[in-house]
């Protein structure tokens, strides 16, 4: 997976569709990121922070009992063990360090369920940056504990009351806010989305997942897995793990939520600064995604994924809410790892595809993007028929 063109295009996707007011900030960021990413001192600082603070490298775990059950060899990349409980920390550490390097003192972010918000607040606290997080009002109620976590970390959480009051509106609001304060504030976007250079930059910050996993698999004697499987909301964990295997023969599988399947059900469009595949109605109005997992509740997908889908280099599949809980239970019981509901989508696909699309005996790298602690209350109510 190479860099996009100068304008941030991956094939016909990507680009930079933002108000002129934000173009200078996007261009400044592009220059700053290129410069930093080519500077061994910055790269070392990024890796050191992730190691010393973020808990990297996360291990690869051979899932022996799941493998037996499925007739496969399944290895899990354990992003659930990263600080704050998912891969989100990789990205925010990179962006927060870049913020300081650019001489900015404040960071803003959008968040859906709160994972990216908590991660951003965490990196901001650690580095002494002010932090404001935009969160749909509906989500602030559903995820009140994450609001409190962000506040504990010293961040200000702003409930977004516009539109559908969920994630996509939080992105809109963060962008609106960024217009007013880009001089001293960096917008720390939470996935491989938004205007260039975000999709590329976030992928680069997440590619540590794939780089580590490729070398860790070799320690297990696996040169190239047959499949690399990751769930896809915006697509950052998938992009990060795919990056380690782009030049290999591994089949790359991105698993979307059926109710947020931008590749499966979307059409090309422009939102949040990028051209990509989007869920939209007949008039180009963006539709809301719906998924059991808040982190997959996004009506779009990162532009690079749209491109990989176009090329056929990665395949995108969708999994319905109905099988996700079962997959979460299976992994918990067999391996002692309660995955995030987002991650459980990837598990669910694998369980279903084993012995079929994924032939018996295949070697699979599953990106275990996050832990399920945040979801336990929800899963409990679902299993009790309370929701």
């Amino acid at each position, binding site marked *: 997976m190479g860099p996009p063109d100068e304008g941030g295009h991956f094939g016909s996707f990507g680009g930079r*569709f*933002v108000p*002129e007011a934000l173009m*200078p900030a996007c261009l400044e960021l592009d220059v700053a990121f290129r410069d930093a990413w080519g500077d061994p001192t910055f790269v070392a600082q990024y890796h050191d922070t992730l190691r010393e603070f973020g808990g990297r490298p996360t291990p690869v775990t051979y899932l022996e009992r799941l493998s037996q059950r499925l007739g496969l060899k399944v290895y899990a990349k354990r992003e659930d063990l990263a600080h704050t409980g998912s891969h989100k920390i990789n990205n925010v550490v990179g962006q927060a360090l870049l913020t300081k390097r650019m001489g900015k003192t404040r960071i803003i972010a959008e968040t859906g369920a709160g994972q990216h918000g908590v991660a951003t607040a965490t990196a901001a606290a650690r580095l002494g940056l002010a932090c404001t997080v935009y969160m749909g009002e509906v989500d602030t109620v559903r995820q009140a504990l994450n609001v409190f976590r962000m506040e504990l970390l010293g961040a200000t959480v702003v409930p977004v009351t516009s539109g559908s009051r969920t994630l996509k509106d939080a992105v809109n609001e963060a962008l609106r806010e960024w217009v*007013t304060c880009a001089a001293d504030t960096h917008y720390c976007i939470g996935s491989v989305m938004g205007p260039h250079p975000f999709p590329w930059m976030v992928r680069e910050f997440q590619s540590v997942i794939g780089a580590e996993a490729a070398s860790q698999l070799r320690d297990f004697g696996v040169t190239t897995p047959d499949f690399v499987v990751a769930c896809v909301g915006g697509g950052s964990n998938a992009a990060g793990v795919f990056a380690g295997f782009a030049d290999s023969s591994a089949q790359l599988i991105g698993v979307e939520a059926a109710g947020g399947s931008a590749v499966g059900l979307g*059409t090309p469009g422009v939102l949040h600064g990028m051209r990509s595949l989007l869920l939209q109605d007949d*008039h*180009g109005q963006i539709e809301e995604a719906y998924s059991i997992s808040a982190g997959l509740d996004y009506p779009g997908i990162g532009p690079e994924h749209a491109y990989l889908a176009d090329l056929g280099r990665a395949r995108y599949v969708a999994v319905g809410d109905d099988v996700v809980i079962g997959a979460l239970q299976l992994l918990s019981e067999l391996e002692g790892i309660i995955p995030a509901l987002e991650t459980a989508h990837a598990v669910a696909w694998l369980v279903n595809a084993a012995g079929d699309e994924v032939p018996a005996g295949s070697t699979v790298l599953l990106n275990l993007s996050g832990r399920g602690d945040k979801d336990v209350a929800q899963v409990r109510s679902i299993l009790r028929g309370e929701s």
Partner: protein
Amino acid sequence: MTTLDTRLRDLRARRKALVPYFVGGLTSDWTTYVAAAIHAGADVVEVGVPFSDPMMDGPVIQEGALRALGNEATLESICHELAVAAFEVPIVVMTYFNVLHHFGLERSAELLGASGVAGVIVPDLAIEEATPWREVATAADVATVLMVAPSSPIERVRRIGEQSQGFVYAAARMAVTGRASDVGDAARVVQSVRSVCDTPTYVGIGITTPEHASDAGAFSDGVIVGSALVQRILDGASAHDLEGSISSFRLALDTTAREA
């Protein structure tokens, strides 16, 4: 040169341009507000085609867009109503790029042109991505109005100035649409536009009162008044009520021009 270019250069010779903004489809009789505005002295009318995710708009115009979407306003329905109304002043449609993209760039340009729309403002379409649209729009004689922001460095102002058709939209401040207490950085922005091109330059974003209009009119070619008017419509003002407001903007601008 599009027709809009010609008309607005002519206009500049006569008076400061007053450009009220309305949300297409906000009410079933929204075109009567446009007519009233023209009657009160509007030179150009900006008509918003609603989009679900209006990232350059503040709460007032967001609310307007939401209501219009609730009324099932679409690019086609608004174009149709504009075509029927056939207003005498130039109409500039403001919408987000996805609306055009989804309908098809060429198809959109043709529809707009055929409906008598003179130009468009697409706030999320920066110069870097604008070329494919500009080509088809120009072919349909639809001008593409570009925006300059206080953050735009002079090289960008130059490129925007070169490419913007009809007028240059000078953003008065680093903010999305909404009401404000002054004209912000407008003077500096207009000055930088003037230093690179000769296109008429109108000030928008935060123009809320006739005083703002007269302030901005002193150094620019006109003003765009959006949220201040839309808020009144949201609050229930009739087309007749609006006419009064717009007249006072007209008066303020004309007074400024005479004093200058």
